[in-house]
């Protein structure tokens, strides 16, 4: 049994059917522009695009991956087409990796849209691009697995949206994306360190402006741990709830 054929076809089908649809492409374009504009308009002092870049990249990945994955898996569960995947002779781990790979790629592509916009507005010299790429991959994986965790925890599409926002909106304000961690109230800081995006955004800050506060290797390790934990728990939940 050539499992790579199944893996590749699940990934390609998802890319074609969900991620490369015009509404999603426009979402990827509009979202970072809207965030950047919001900070330009609301900030009383002049805003440097480069300061905003790590935050906008992180949010583009987070929103792109969690929205799509949580909704598509819940939708396939409702229409019972997900059963067809569960009945295929491929391991559950491989199946879920195939289902999440599309979202990871979509998140990575989304991440570089703000970079392209920023290139027209400011100088991008001195950025550690290798670190940017690595952190984008790690953030995309962690965010996608967060989307998977949400998808396997709910049964309705609307629940997936609501539950996604339960995680996403606090992250916007608590992960140091736009408000530095050290400026947050002391009682909120432990919560910030419990959120994966804090570490991803901090790596990006180091890569773009060299102003991160968490050691980069530690951030990568924490993201890796979050990914492993979210994936393992999601698989456990699929086994417990969907193959009951």
């Amino acid at each position: 049994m050539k499992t790579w054929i199944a893996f590749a076809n699940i990934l390609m089908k998802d890319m074609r059917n969900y991620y490369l649809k015009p509404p999603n492409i426009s979402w990827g374009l509009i979202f970072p522009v809207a965030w950047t504009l919001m900070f330009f308009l609301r900030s009383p002092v002049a805003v440097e695009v480069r300061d905003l870049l790590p935050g906008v990249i992180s949010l583009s990945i987070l929103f792109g991956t969690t929205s799509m994955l949580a909704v598509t898996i819940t939708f396939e569960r409702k229409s019972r087409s997900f059963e067809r995947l569960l009945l295929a002779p491929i391991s559950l781990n491989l199946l879920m990796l195939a289902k999440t790979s599309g979202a990871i790629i979509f998140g990575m592509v989304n991440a570089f849209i703000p970079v392209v916009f920023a290139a027209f507005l400011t100088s991008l010299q001195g950025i550690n691009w290798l670190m940017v790429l690595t952190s984008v991959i790690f953030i995309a994986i962690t965010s996608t697995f967060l989307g998977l965790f949400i998808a396997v925890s709910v049964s309705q599409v609307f629940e997936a949206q609501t539950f996604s926002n339960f995680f996403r909106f606090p992250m916007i304000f608590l992960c140091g994306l736009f408000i530095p961690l050290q400026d947050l109230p002391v009682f909120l800081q432990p919560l910030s360190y419990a959120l994966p995006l804090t570490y991803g955004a901090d790596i990006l800050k180091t890569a773009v402006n060299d102003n991160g506060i968490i050691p980069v290797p530690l951030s990568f390790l924490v993201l890796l741990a979050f990914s492993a934990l979210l994936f393992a728990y999601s698989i456990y939940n699929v086994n417990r709830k969907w193959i009951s």
Partner: protein
Amino acid sequence: MKIIEAENLKKDYNGFSAVKGVNFHINRGEIFGFLGPNGAGKTTTINMLTGLARISGGRVKLLGEDYTRNHKKAQAMMGIVPDESNLYEELNGWENLCFCGALYGMERDRREKRARELLEQFGLEDASSKPFKAYSKGMKRKLTIAAGIIHEPEILFLDEPTTGIDVAFARQIRNLIVDLHDRGTTIFLTTHYIEEAERLCERLAFIVEGEIVREGTVEELMREAQGENIVNFTLGGDFNEVKKEFKAVFPDYGYRIGRDSVISVHSPEAFSLLPLVQFFEERGLPVYEAKIARPSLEEVFVKVTGIELKKMQNQKEGRG
């Protein structure tokens, strides 16, 4: 040769026993039917056999190999057609078939060739480029069956394949099932249509409230229900004129006079037809027809389970 063996198979949901230790086997190349009302445990059994539901107790074997705890290897040899079509609404017929082939590791050339064959075999060539959501219910069911056999499985599980579709499509699907069987596919069929089970299945199990209450070939099941031997004679004269003589000549046989000159002769023992035919002919009552009366599978089912068939079908089709 046994292809599937279920031994003391059980399924519990939070203290409720949906399947209570069923034992059965399916022989290679046969159509095995699971007949029972709504909630009897038919779909749960299929789900346990195919890996969609965890087995609470007992074990299952495929070609002698236990796969109770590891369905993945067995799934490669199975084709599954659920009671509701579960293909991708946004993909067209061709794409759905090719995608399902890919899930079983089929190379592109092989799955495309097979998809073309199946679309032709199932009469769906003209609809191959239409999205699945635009298909009628019968077409959806046909394509779902095609998707279930694209990888040429050893055994095909068909869960209520004709429920809720019109008569013409149901007939086409039954013909397709016979055709698949003729090509050597082993078929596990669940249904609540007794005539469908009688027409298609070689062996049957009646399942009620999670228990198999009877299992056997159609012949065996009917024989069991047959209390006495009955032959219906259509005569060309009035039996009343000879009935006293009949009683004297055949003291062990009973009779009932029916409508249209039909006389039902019955006996607990098997009897020879020739003396009876000679008796009637010699007394000027020509015998136009002599037909052995057998109980229908419906009678067997009702006798064994105590469930009214009409009620069972209405319940399944949502007619209360």
